[in-house]
Structures are given as structure tokens and as C-alpha cells.
């Protein structure tokens, strides 16, 4: 047993046991001080009965229910967290029933102080907490059995398969013991299993949500249906910040099935809502709207945005976010320098389930069903955009048809809250694909200038990286800051938002979205200077799978490749030499080189390598790429990942495969462009997604170790584009410094 794992968790303020009214055991997360706040809104664990922040319920009929406080959007958290619980509780993970949590402060992600699923944190941040909940319940069930069998202690008892077993062979099921266990307090000194005792962690590979998803039974946000529900669609101002100048809605109002047509403002956007008795009636009536839009004063086009970035890089020193040695001195003494400019575009998330929300508003309060990555921010958005106080708003989360960071923002909840509040009826809002593409919170475009210095001995001596990029945080804080203070009255929300903005780095974590993956460049060069130049073009931006690492991974791993070639060194060996202080990275590079047969590409192919650490996980990839004229195809990607202790190895492989194909979509096609403040792309014909014929063979290898687990949802993304670009350089001698990749 490994007791050191428990450090930092005070059980007294963490877990609380209580009896279910129907008999049985409920383990709750108890937080000191604020337990009474917003009780009405916290997790509804059974029909008609409110419970605070429940995590685990064992009923007298042996049902074991886990309240999942993160959302499942494909990343495998559902299976992962159940595996952690089942490991310590000694039950088959497949027998654990799962309910989605509502809003509750105890469900907050400890890394963000918000109830949010993002940043590849679910397994990493829950690894101890959820195992401890399972272990505590297990020990209480053993105590209950000891009482029934009149034993002095539990030393002759063990648990297996949902039963407490005595050394004599007699058994009691968890259900039989649950009511008695609920009379005990949570033990103080429960130890967690040591890795050699694991039976599921590192081995369990059955995806628990797959059956619902291959039979069409999983209920996504867009599938929620309420009696008497109306359907809403919204025409939004094409340019960011645009407003409705004139509206003639007479034809739309007269159309079949139309209930209401009205202008609305929500989440910083202006539009016109059309509400109908069916989705198609609302959609058809929308075509009859006559709207003249007022174009905003600032309506940038892509060229102007990159010109602004160029100006800011020319004129601003920015904030220094890495300062090793003395780069300026290295530059003065340099025998030669290598310089390059890299440019990356805006990207949409393009979740296959378009944004949507269902809201029911009446005299009793407001209920929201939303495919959201943050239940607590969804509640703030609904409160800000309606007459209801947060205590009267209940959030239900659903299965999510792709998140990738899009659903950290809550604009669809805000819009639907406005509509339902006005109509006092249940309403489902559905965005079209075109609306989803044109009104996203985009991965920011960025511009990068790099300079490497080479000393008189011909050795690389310095590295400078200057980044022009906006602050994603500023587009997110409006709902996030109030969600951290749910007891504050609504009129305080704007103040909380501005305080949150000013409090960046003090009250809230520093916004590293511009420079993460750049300031921590891992290569051992003596003089490193990384600077973030805050440049804000006014285009709404958000968190996109792997966030800042998505651009800085491409830039740093391409430029180190340039430097390797300048030094006439093998790109893999060059990296290995400069990673002496990162042995886990070195062994990963050696492993990927071995698996991909580095130096011996597939027939007709060339190879490129990249390695990048994001969300505390190292990923190395080698791409085999075939070039024909100006076209190329990625034939194979070999990927090695070190995410510490693997929980569900096949989920990790799946996330690497998915991350690679997600990144390949961006590398081949991803490019959101603007004209007069409006996005020019609309649907999958002009915002292309990778399809089956272009999907490469993928080989994934997982490092075998027992460090605490780190994230896997995002880290597969950053190395892919540079690995492909480096292979294209090997094949053609063309260094591609812009995404999407295009050969000349």
C-alpha cells in the first residue's frame, strides 16, 4: 500500500458518508464553509431528491452509481474515471452505473477552480481523489461486515466482485452492507493500492460508453426532447460586433408553424431569432427574414490582421516569458544567425454536433440541457441572460458530440436562455453548420519570428522566439469569473468579469495560451529569449484542442529542424543531444525512431520527426510522407507517448489516433479567413475535414512507467504538423512555415 499518495488530501474536509433515504450508502464530497450555497442546484442523484455533491452511491439492491463530474465528449473520461473508482472498490467497471453531475462546487476542477472539462486534466486531477472515494467506501463496507459477523477488526476480510469475503469463505454483498456502512464515518487512514496490486488500472480496455454509441441510444444535447418544445434558429450578424440595422420580419412571421420572431442580443452577438413548431419550419421562415446589418467600425480582414501582427512584432518588445543566459550577447558574438517567420491561421472547432441547447423556463425556475464543457459557466450564462437567479437554474449535462474546447464557451446557452425566458416555454436552439463555422471562438491566428545564433565554433548558441497573439482568457473570463463566485448577486457579474481580467496571474492562472510550448522549449541552448507580444485583432477566440501548444509545437519543432539541417546534423540525433536533461523525452525519441525505422522510410516516402510536451505529457511522432508534384499524402504516423501510469491503454491509443487525425485536418486544410470582419468559410465543402482515404496508418506505443498519470486528450495534436512539415522538407527541400501546408 502506498500511503504517500494520500498526501495533500485532507479526508476530513473531503469525503462525507451518509445514508440514502431508501437505505444504502452515499459518499459525498464535503467542502467546509460553503456547503449551504446553491444547494438547490447541486447534483440531482435520484428523482425528486436533492443531494449535495454526491460521487458514489451504493443501493441496497447492489446498484453502484458513480456521479461523473466531468463530461464525456469522446476523450474517454467516462471509462477512465470509472476504472479508477472500480479499482479501489473491487468491482467490475462494467457494472458501475454512471450519472452525469449537475452544478456543484465540490465538482470544480481543482486546477481551474471551475467545474470544467478541459486541459487534458480529468484523469490526472482525479487520479487520487476518486480512488480515495472508492477505497474509503471499500473499507467502510468491510467495517460493516465485521459488525455483522461480530469480528474485532477487518483483518480477515477482503473485497472482490462487489462482495466482502471472510477468510472462511462466507460473503456479504455490498448492497446488504450499504445501510450499515452508512452509519460509520469515513476512515482517516485508508491506503490506496500500490501499482503491483492493480487489476484494472493499466489493463482495462473496454470502452464503457461504446454500446450506447453503436446502437444510437446515447442522448446528446441535440437529442433532448421535452413535451410542447419549440424550435429556435438565429440569424447572427455576419461581422463580429455587427448589429441589426433594419428588420422586416413580416414574411417570416406569416410562415407556417412560426411562433415568434424577434431581435436578440446574447453573449456579445446580435441576431434575429425565429421560433417555430418544428426545426424545419423555423429554418424555412429564417430564409424570409429581411435584415440589414450595421457593420461594426472595426471589421478586420485576414490581411489586415497579419499586418497588425507584423507591426506589433516590429515595434513591441512584449513580455519576456523565458530568459536563459544572455541572448543579446550571443547575437552580438554570433558568427552567423538563422532567422525565420512562421504564420498560423484561425481555426474553427467544427464539432460534428453543432452548437445547441434546450431550455425550459417557467414559474418554477429554469432548467438547461446543454452539451457543455462547463456546467458552472453554463449556469452563469443562463443567469446573465434571463430573469432567473443562479439558485433557480438547474443545469443538466448530456453526451457531447465533440468538444475540442468549443464548449468551454457558453454562447448557445446564453442565446437559448434569452429565448426561453421570453417565451416561458421549452425551446431547443439548433445552430446550422454554416452558423457554427462562422460564429466560433477560433483558435487564434499568430505570427512568430525566430532567430537562432551560431557561434564561431559552428555550434548553436542561442534561440529567440517572438510571438504575436491575442489573449484567449479575455474572451472567456466574462462567464468564468462569476462562475468562481456563484454566491455573488448577478449585478456583480460585470465587475467580477473585469476583476477577473485584471486579476489574470493573481486571482486566476496566467493566460499562457500565446506562449505555452514556446517558453518551455526543452532544448539545452545556453541563451534563450522568448517574448509574448499581446496583439488583439478583435476576432473572438477560444480554447482549441492543445491551445497554445497547437501553434508553438509547430513553430518550435519546425525551427529546431531548420537548425539541425543548418548544423548538418541528423534531426533526430540533434534533438537527442539537446535533450540530455529530459531523459523521458530522450527514451521516447529512441523508441519512436526504433518503431518507425528512422532513416529507412516506407517505399516512396520521406520521414520527419517531432517531439513536444504539452499538458505534462511528452509525445514523439515520425511521419512517413509521399510527395507527388505539389501533392502529398501522409502514409504512416508512428507515435510514442509518455503520460505516466496508463489507466486505460486503449483509450490512450485512441486519443493519440484521434489527435493525429485532428491535427492532420488542420495541417492539410484548416484555414479560417476573414473579410470585412466576417468569416468566409461555411460548411465542409470550404472548411474541409480529413476523410477515410487520407487517414494514415497509425502506430502508437505507450511508455511503461508508474509516474502519476498526465493528460492524453490534447498532447497527440502538437507534434503532427511539424513532423509532416519536416518530412516535406526532407522530400523537397522546401521549408513550409505556414499552415495549412502547401508545396510550391
Amino acid at each position, binding site marked *: 500500500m502506498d500511503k504517500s499518495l494520500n498526501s495533500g488530501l485532507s479526508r476530513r474536509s473531503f469525503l462525507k458518508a451518509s445514508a440514502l433515504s431508501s437505505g444504502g450508502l452515499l459518499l459525498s464530497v464535503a467542502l467546509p464553509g460553503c456547503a449551504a450555497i446553491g444547494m438547490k442546484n447541486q447534483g440531482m442523484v435520484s428523482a425528486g431528491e436533492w443531494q449535495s455533491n454526491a460521487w458514489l452511491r451504493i443501493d441496497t439492491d447492489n446498484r453502484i452509481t458513480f456521479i461523473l463530474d466531468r463530461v464525456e465528449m469522446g476523450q474517454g473520461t467516462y471509462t477512465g474515471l470509472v476504472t479508477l473508482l472500480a479499482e479501489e472498490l473491487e468491482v467490475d467497471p462494467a457494472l458501475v452505473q454512471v450519472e452525469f453531475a449537475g452544478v456543484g462546487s465540490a465538482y470544480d476542477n481543482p486546477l481551474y477552480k471551475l467545474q470544467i472539462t478541459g486541459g487534458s486534466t480529468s484523469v490526472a486531477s482525479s487520479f487520487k481523489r476518486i480512488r480515495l472515494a472508492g477505497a474509503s467506501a471499500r473499507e467502510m463496507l468491510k467495517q460493516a461486515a465485521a459488525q455483522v459477523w461480530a469480528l474485532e477488526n477487518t483483518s480477515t476480510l477482503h473485497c472482490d466482485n462487489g462482495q466482502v469475503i471472510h477468510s472462511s469463505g462466507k460473503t456479504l454483498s455490498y448492497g446488504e452492507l450499504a445501510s450499515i456502512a452508512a452509519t460509520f464515518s469515513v476512515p482517516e487512514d485508508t491506503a490506496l493500492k500500490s501499482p503491483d496490486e492493480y487489476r484494472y488500472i493499466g489493463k482495462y480496455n473496454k470502452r464503457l460508453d*461504446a454500446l450506447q454509441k453503436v446502437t444510437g441510444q446515447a442522448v446528446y444535447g441535440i437529442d433532448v426532447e421535452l413535451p410542447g418544445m419549440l424550435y429556435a434558429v438565429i440569424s447572427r450578424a455576419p461581422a463580429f460586433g455587427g448589429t441589426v440595422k433594419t428588420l422586416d420580419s413580416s414574411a417570416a412571421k406569416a410562415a407556417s408553424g412560426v411562433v415568434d420572431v424577434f431581435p436578440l442580443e446574447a453573449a456579445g452577438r446580435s441576431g434575429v431569432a425565429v421560433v417555430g413548431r418544428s426545426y*424545419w419550419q423555423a429554418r424555412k421562415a429564417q430564409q424570409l427574414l429581411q435584415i440589414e446589418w450595421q457593420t461594426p467600425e472595426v471589421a478586420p480582414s485576414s490581411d489586415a490582421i497579419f499586418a497588425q501582427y507584423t507591426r506589433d512584432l516590429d515595434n513591441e518588445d512584449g513580455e519576456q516569458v523565458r530568459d536563459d543566459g544572455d541572448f543579446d550577447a550571443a547575437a552580438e558574438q554570433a558568427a552567423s544567425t538563422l532567422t525565420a517567420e512562421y504564420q498560423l491561421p484561425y481555426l474553427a472547432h467544427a464539432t460534428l454536433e453543432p452548437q445547441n441547447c434546450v431550455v425550459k423556463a417557467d414559474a418554477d425556475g429554469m432548467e438547461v440541457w446543454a452539451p457543455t464543457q462547463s456546467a458552472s459557466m453554463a449556469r452563469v450564462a443562463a443567469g446573465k441572460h434571463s430573469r432567473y437567479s443562479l439558485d433557480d437554474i438547474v443545469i443538466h449535462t448530456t453526451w457531447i*458530440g465533440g468538444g475540442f474546447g468549443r464548449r468551454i464557451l457558453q454562447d448557445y446557452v446564453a442565446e437559448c436562455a434569452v429565448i426561453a425566458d421570453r417565451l416561458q416555454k421549452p425551446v431547443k436552439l439548433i445552430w446550422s*453548420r454554416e452558423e457554427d463555422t462562422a460564429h466560433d471562438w477560433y483558435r487564434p491566428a499568430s505570427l512568430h519570428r525566430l532567430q537562432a545564433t551560431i557561434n564561431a565554433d559552428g555550434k548553436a548558441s542561442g534561440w529567440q522566439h517572438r510571438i504575436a497573439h491575442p489573449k484567449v482568457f479575455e474572451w472567456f473570463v466574462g462567464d468564468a469569473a462569476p462562475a468562481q463566485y456563484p454566491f455573488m448577486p448577478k449585478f456583480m457579474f460585470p465587475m467580477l468579469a473585469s476583476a477577473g481580467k485584471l486579476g489574470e496571474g493573481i486571482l486566476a492562472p496566467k493566460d499562457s495560451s500565446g506562449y505555452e510550448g514556446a517558453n518551455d522549449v526543452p532544448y539545452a541552448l545556453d541563451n534563450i529569449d522568448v517574448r509574448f507580444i499581446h496583439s488583439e485583432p478583435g476576432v473572438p477566440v477560444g480554447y482549441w484542442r492543445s491551445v497554445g501548444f497547437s501553434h508553438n509545437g509547430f513553430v518550435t519543432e519546425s525551427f529546431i529542424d531548420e537548425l539541425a539541417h543548418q548544423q548538418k546534423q541528423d534531426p533526430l540525433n540533434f534533438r537527442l543531444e539537446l535533450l540530455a536533461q529530459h531523459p523521458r523525452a530522450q527514451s521516447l525519441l529512441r523508441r519512436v525512431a526504433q518503431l518507425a525505422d528512422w532513416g529507412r522510410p516506407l517505399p516512396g516516402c520521406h520521414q520527419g520527426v517531432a517531439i513536444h510536451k504539452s499538458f505534462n505529457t511528452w509525445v514523439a511522432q515520425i511521419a512517413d510522407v509521399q510527395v507527388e508534384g505539389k501533392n502529398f499524402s501522409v502514409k504512416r504516423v508512428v507515435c510514442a507517448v509518455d503520460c505516466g501510469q496508463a489507466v486505460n491503454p486503449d483509450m490512450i491509443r485512441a486519443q493519440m489516433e484521434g489527435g493525429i487525425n485532428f491535427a492532420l485536418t488542420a495541417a492539410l486544410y484548416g484555414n479560417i479567413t476573414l473579410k470585412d470582419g466576417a468569416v468566409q468559410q461555411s460548411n465542409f465543402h470550404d472548411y474541409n475535414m480529413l*476523410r477515410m482515404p487520407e487517414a494514415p496508418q497509425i502506430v502508437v506505443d505507450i511508455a511503461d512507467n508508474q509516474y502519476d498519470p498526465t493528460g492524453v486528450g490534447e498532447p497527440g495534436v502538437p507534434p503532427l504538423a511539424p513532423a509532416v512539415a519536416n518530412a516535406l522538407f526532407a522530400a523537397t527541400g522546401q521549408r513550409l512555415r505556414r499552415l495549412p501546408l502547401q508545396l510550391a
Partner: protein
Amino acid sequence: MIRLTVNDVEHTLDVEGDTPLLWVVRDVLGLKGSKFGCGAGLCGACTMHLNGQPIRTCIMPLSAVAGQNITTIEGLSPANASVQQLTPVQQAWLELNVPQCGYCQSGQIMAATALLASNPNPSDADIDNAMSGNICRCGTYPRIRSAIHKAAGMMSAGSHPQAARNGELFSEVTLPQATNSEELSHG
């Protein structure tokens, strides 16, 4: 009134004839397994079978399929089916942990089912051709490919109780309309 047979159940519907089949099946008949992704026949999330052929129902007006037989994901196996009652395609999907977010998978499974009904032993190129109209944003393509090969193996082995059922279901199929190649320009 428009008549329509969905998963062997006949319906008489009082719905405007230009309504896309997808919304009729989802919101009038309450079968939510088929998904809305693009509204333009570009992503395949809405794929159902029309007399055994895969079609894009987000752009198929109800009036155009009046009197026809439609099969949705819910029609492949019984409600609340056990794993053994699933089709070979669904079983292969389960065994290989294909779904991630799962949103596209109903459409993927309908496309793969139609492929295997007409081509019991597809090559990789056949799979590329038949599946290229179905987008998976989570990037599960390698597993979809493996699962189709696996399902083909299960069906040809003849050991699968659902194999006969599939043969019957698609006995009249001649050739699958792979996909609209003009949808697939990738620049």
C-alpha cells in the same frame, strides 16, 4: 398525408413534404440515433438506408421517399439489444472500441453495413470509396477500417447469427452508391 415505412413499422404522416427525412425521423417519429451534422449531404451523420441503399437524409425531402422502406440505426438490432443480438458491424465496432464522441457513428455504421451487404470482402480501396462521405471529427478512421474488415470476417465465417439476417435485409441490393465524388474535393 405521406406514408412511410421505418424499421418495418408503417407510418402515415401529416408533415410538410419538403421537410428533410432526417427531421421527420428524429422529431416526428422520435428516433434520435441519426444525427444532424451539416444539412448539406457532406458529412454522413444522417445516413439511413432507403430500400437498403445508404442515403443522406438531411437533404432528402420526405415527399421524395413517400411509400418507401427506411432503415435507421435503431432498426439494425432490437431495442436494448444484448451484445449477441447486435449485427456483426455493431459487434466489431464494440470490440475495437471504435466510438469516441460517437456522434458520427450511427452514420458510419449505416454506411459500413450497406457496403458489406453488397461487398462481403471489401479491400482497403473499397472501404475508402464507400466510407469517404462520412466524416469523423474525432478521427476514428483507422478503427473504422479495422472494424469493417473484422465484421466481414465474422460474416463470412457464417458463425454469426446476424449474418443471415443481414443477407436477407440486403438481398435486393445491387451496388452501393459509394458517395458523391463531387462532395469530396479537397483542394
